């Protein structure tokens, strides 16, 4: 392993020699629209490119997650999964026009996660050019329906139907280089909607205002006592409602997220919020409903897990400082199935969720080198020791 780490920095320049192909993959995939639930076109481009790069098998699972498989040299070793989610936040009629400058690429969705998918697509040709082979099969999957209401359905399905053991996995996210995620909080994202009947002769003496009803709900949430341990919090992240300035709002919606180290705590907090909602709805005689949009169970590797230790060493050998936070990505689905996994970022960027989202090109080559380093480490057995 030490010798491998010593040689890792030299990989960076070899990967850089393939800059044109890597950027082309990022742009071709990024300029193909893929809003959540409508990833079909991007999935087709993914499979076409995989086939062109000569992977041993290109297919989809029963849920239409596109997959490329590079066969390993040792049939008895379980496969290594490398995944990146295909879907983006942007509508399909948006011009996904990417602009390349000397050291940046700018365009909607590039950081989340066209860059990740473009790098995933480039791995087969990088392996080939670097003359790399692996004992394990390498399963390269672009997972659909990850974001928001997608609730990571793609990756959930992929793992549910993959019947044989998986050796380890890496989830690729565009940014930031240095992220080393190995745990995820428990989380529920929910939506509370208030609707007031507009019919004349409805039972109210004074028509209630949907926005003010939600305000009462927010006040109720703010009064909840959340513990320091397990670490827990509620974020009220979205609100919308009403028609115009001078009219009572008949409809309003509130989006929130509960997060905690403990999924039990998340569920308990959700139940508390549900009681607040039921009570306010009853007392005001309005249609007030709460529903879950997505949820995740808390899961983690320990910091001294060999995969985490090796990944941190790989990052350091490339001069990258590892930083760790909780993540709500595909990682949690792998971890919840006891598959050792980490999430890695590829480069640096800014304006994440806007049309001006911009990635830096130069650090990307280190990001890819760390990715190859971690695949090599898993193939070398760091996940087998547990």
């Amino acid at each position: 392993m030490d010798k491998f780490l010593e040689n890792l920095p030299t990989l960076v320049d070899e990967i850089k020699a393939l800059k044109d192909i890597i950027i082309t993959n990022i742009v071709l995939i990024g300029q193909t629209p893929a809003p959540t639930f409508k990833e079909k076109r991007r999935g087709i481009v993914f499979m076409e490119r995989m086939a062109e790069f000569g992977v041993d098998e290109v297919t989809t699972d029963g849920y239409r997650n596109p997959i490329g498989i590079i066969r390993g040299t040792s049939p008895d070793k379980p496969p290594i999964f490398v995944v990146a989610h295909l879907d983006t936040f942007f509508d399909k009629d948006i011009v996904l026009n990417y602009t390349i400058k000397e050291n940046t690429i700018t365009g909607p969705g590039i950081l989340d996660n066209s860059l990740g998918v473009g790098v995933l697509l480039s791995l087969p040709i990088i392996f080939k050019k670097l003359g790399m082979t692996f004992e394990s099969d390498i399963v390269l999957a672009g997972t659909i329906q990850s974001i928001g209401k997608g609730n990571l359905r793609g990756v959930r399905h992929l793992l549910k139907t993959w019947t044989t053991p998986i050796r380890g996995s890496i989830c690729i996210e565009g940014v930031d280089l240095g992220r080393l995620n190995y745990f995820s909080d428990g989380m529920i994202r929910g939506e509370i909607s208030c609707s007031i009947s507009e019919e004349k002769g409805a039972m109210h003496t004074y028509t209630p205002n949907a926005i003010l009803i939600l305000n009462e709900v927010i006040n109720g949430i703010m009064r909840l006592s959340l513990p320091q341990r397990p670490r827990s919090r509620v974020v009220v992240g979205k609100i919308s409602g009403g028609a115009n300035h001078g009219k009572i709002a008949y409809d309003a919606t509130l989006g929130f997220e509960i997060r905690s180290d403990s999924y039990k705590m998340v569920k308990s907090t959700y139940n508390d919020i549900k009681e607040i909602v039921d009570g306010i709805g009853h007392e005001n005689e309005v249609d007030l409903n709460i529903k879950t949009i997505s949820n995740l169970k808390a899961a983690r590797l320990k910091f001294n897990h060999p995969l985490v230790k090796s990944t941190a060493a790989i990052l350091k050998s490339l001069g990258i400082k590892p930083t760790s936070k909780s993540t709500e990505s595909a990682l949690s689905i792998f971890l919840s199935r006891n598959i050792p996994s980490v999430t890695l970022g590829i480069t640096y960027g800014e304006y994440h969720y806007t049309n001006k989202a911009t990635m830096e090109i130069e650090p990307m080559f280190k990001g890819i080198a760390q990715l190859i380093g971690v695949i090599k480490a898993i193939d070398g057995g760091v996940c087998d020791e547990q």
Partner: protein
Amino acid sequence: MSNNWLEKNTFHYSDFKDLFHLVEEKQKKNLQISLCLPTLNEEKTIAKEIIIMKSELMTRYPLVDEIVVIDSGSTDNTVEIAKSFGADVYDANQILPHLEKFKGKGENLWKALYITKGDIIVYIDADIKNIHHRFAYGLIGPLLLYDQIKYAKAFYDRPISIGKNKIRPTGGGRVTELVIRPLFSLFFPELTQILQPLSGEYAGYREVLEKLPFPIGYGVETSMILDIYEKWGLDVIAQVDLDRRIHRNQDTKALGRMSFAILKTFINRQKRSGLIDLKNNLYDEIIQYNLVDSQYQPAVSKIIGLERPPMIEIPEYCEKFNIKN
């Protein structure tokens, strides 16, 4: 008029997606292929065009031998960016510098004949937002696989950009439908089978292109079709569906100036061939009106409609390519 040509000479880019086969054919025929991108302030799109073409058609499949950018004096970073991504970049004014200098797309395309070395030259506009290597291989395909075809022209489904980031699914092609198609229908009905005669993407054999005069401005696409049709007939032309091209939507006044140049090119050609008899010369100015402070004021644009002679008539070219006239 028969529709034979439309059926026989219309292709889809996917007919040529086997790039390995195209490379084999190119090598068998011992041909070189040049890709030319004419530019004027294209810093937002030029890098993407170069990098995708280079990756797919040079690094992965050696179909294209050189990418040449001919710039008309960009004031943004087009030249620096193009150089940094590995294209050969030329200032149009420095090519054949002893000749009188003109500015225009046609001028750049004409000068590209002198600068490039390929037996086939592919011209692609540098402002394509959804660039893909099919824009090049789709045009190269018929030239390599069908011996009688010497010139290939693109057509598209043309969504246009509206506002900053939205597209409208159909549209564009207004000059084609309002100017070119009526003209072709009146004079050369056979040519109406060319679905988008004004598309900015085409490829041809040098042996054909070097024998054509090039209008320096907008008329270059129309003149190429008319001249090739006159000299070699329609059967040497192919058209290829390149699927979708997202382009800038130009305002009506700009389209008016474009139409003026095209009409002038067309009429001058028919006058030369004796098909039209004009008592006077055509004027060189298009007059458009703008409402300024409740008054209509004329805006006059001079469009002379100059043409470069066939490149094969330029001595330096003949010397460079060892051509004896």
